[in-house]
């Protein structure tokens, strides 16, 4: 059954815009929805939320540790709390609060990392979050999600509001084209989505790298290579069943993420495949362990081959 969506056809937006709109829609019907910001209402596109629902918006100033602690206290009293801050600060400076006050204490805060990965591009490494999957994968009791397009973002926000568990959601601020013409599948945390089907190579991508992975299938097709593309929006819990299915079907596996090649989706997939005897040619694409090249998000993607051409090349290489 197709999930209901408020996204107008043909009007692709940033996932951030979808987040802001979805949250307002939820807040309209549920006064327990609370947004906590750390001077991040502008970068989180939450100024309209604050204006419409002033009683449901808590501002703590630039103080991320406090942001998460306060959010945990609110959540312990039954509030459905979205703690919103740039992913780089939220998952580094406030990591101990996420670990202890949210995950360990089982306070079901929705930790929202905005402008994630290298969205802040030329602002440099202080503003990049290339460690968040790795850090949060190693913390028990938090769902880790990176939606790819507007549909996944809206569904992820709705699902996060509904689920009584800690969730980390991260997305960027680039306009994201839809992965599918019609979304005829349900969005469920922990269940990856097959975006394209082919039996030569499986490309498992997450977040804003799924779209270039999908584009890469066109280039591959020109070479007679048919690729499966999975949008693995949930990094944890990982959809190992789907990984096994596509790895068994295809001759090689490529993973793509806007994250360090250490500790993210790629290593999570590698760990599963190796421990289950599914040995295939395998490549992790992401940001290497070096001082990240300077430039815009797209410059950085291009530099490290996280684009249509680069992903197609790596996929083809594995099949040689």
């Amino acid at each position, binding site marked *: 059954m197709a999930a209901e969506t408020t996204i107008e056809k043909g009007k692709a937006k940033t996932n951030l815009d979808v987040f802001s709109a979805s949250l307002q829609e939820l807040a309209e019907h549920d006064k327990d929805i*609370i947004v906590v910001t750390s001077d991040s209402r502008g970068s989180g596109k939450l100024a309209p939320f604050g204006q419409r629902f002033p*009683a449901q918006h*808590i501002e*703590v*100033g630039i*103080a991320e*540790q*406090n942001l*998460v*602690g*306060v*959010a*945990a*206290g*609110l*959540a*312990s*009293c*039954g*509030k459905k*709390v979205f703690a919103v801050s740039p992913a780089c600060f939220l998952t580094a400076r406030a990591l*101990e*609060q996420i670990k*202890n*006050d949210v995950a*360990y*204490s*089982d*306070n079901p805060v929705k930790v929202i990392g905005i402008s994630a990965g290298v969205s802040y591009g030329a602002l440099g490494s202080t503003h990049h979050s290339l460690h968040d999957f790795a850090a949060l994968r190693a913390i028990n009791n938090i769902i880790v999600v990176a939606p790819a397009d507007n549909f996944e973002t809206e569904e992820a926000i709705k699902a996060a509001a509904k689920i009584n568990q800690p969730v980390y959601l991260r997305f960027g601020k680039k306009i994201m084209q839809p992965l599918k013409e019609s979304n005829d599948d349900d969005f469920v945390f922990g269940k990856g989505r097959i975006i394209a089907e082919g039996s030569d190579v499986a490309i498992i991508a997450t977040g804003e790298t799924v779209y270039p992975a999908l584009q890469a299938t066109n280039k591959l097709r020109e070479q007679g290579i048919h690729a499966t593309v999975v949008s693995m929006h949930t990094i944890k819990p990982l959809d190992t069943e789907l990984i096994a299915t596509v790895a068994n079907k295809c001759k090689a596996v490529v993973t793509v993420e806007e994250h360090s090649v250490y500790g993210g989706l790629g290593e999570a997939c590698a760990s599963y495949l190796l421990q289950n005897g599914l040995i295939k040619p395998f490549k992790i694409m992401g940001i290497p362990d070096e001082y990240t090249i300077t430039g815009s998000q797209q410059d950085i993607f291009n530099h490290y081959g996280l684009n249509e051409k680069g992903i197609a090349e790596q996929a083809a290489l594995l099949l040689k």
Partner: protein
Amino acid sequence: MTTKELQRKSVQYRKNILKYIFHANAGHTGGSLSCIDIINVLYNHTMNVSPSNFRSPDRDRYIQSKGHSVEALFVVLADKGFFPESDLNTLCKYGSHYIGHPTRKVNGVEQNTGALGHGLPISIGTALAAKLDNRNYRVFTLMGDGELPEGSNWEAALTAAHYKLDNLCAIIDHNKLQITGPTSEVCNTDPIDKKFESFGWAVRHVDGHDLDKLKKTFEEIPFADGKPNLVIAHTIKGKGVSYMENVIKWHHGVPNEQQYEEAISELDNAMGTIPDDF
């Protein structure tokens, strides 16, 4: 509860703290003995919380930021009937929920704590929820003076004043010693009162072992309309056992059998000096 009854409880709690730390061969002895009178007054006089209303959204909340003094909290919760006291025989044992810091797996514990500088922000969220829902419960958080340099406390101190959380009461167990030495030498935080006052808090000093004064101080909350409350409770680390008082090694020192017997004997004598009410 009369002050004399509270006094008897305090002595019994001190005996129990030592008993279970001795049995577990682990625990934070000095800090548990310094804060026990505060927790005693909160649970037996000030707060509206008990096993019967613990799931009620209107109960008063206690969040122990200085989680390492968990033995003090456990003996009070056991006495209040949140769990059988015999459970504490498993303190720090394999598979036990009764570990060296508060966890919600133990009935009566509000929040998992242990890392310092976490209690105040969580308490603020809890107090904010009361304001949002028009509930009258109060939130008490016990902090150590040694944890004050944690920056998250000062982020939180700003927020509490900004939101005028007069339903929040932070208590500093000001025993003036931490694991390395006197707090004034490790990282001087004085004057604590003026710092919090300048942040917009209403501050009171109290002798943290004077049960009567503790009762009265907590009865006066809110100290000022629209201001979060801070009680600086002047205490003695290791209070009640003369050889432990103000001696840093008892921060997490565990008495040997002879020291344990000596401490219990001293506390038994103290119990004997509390006159009957009748």
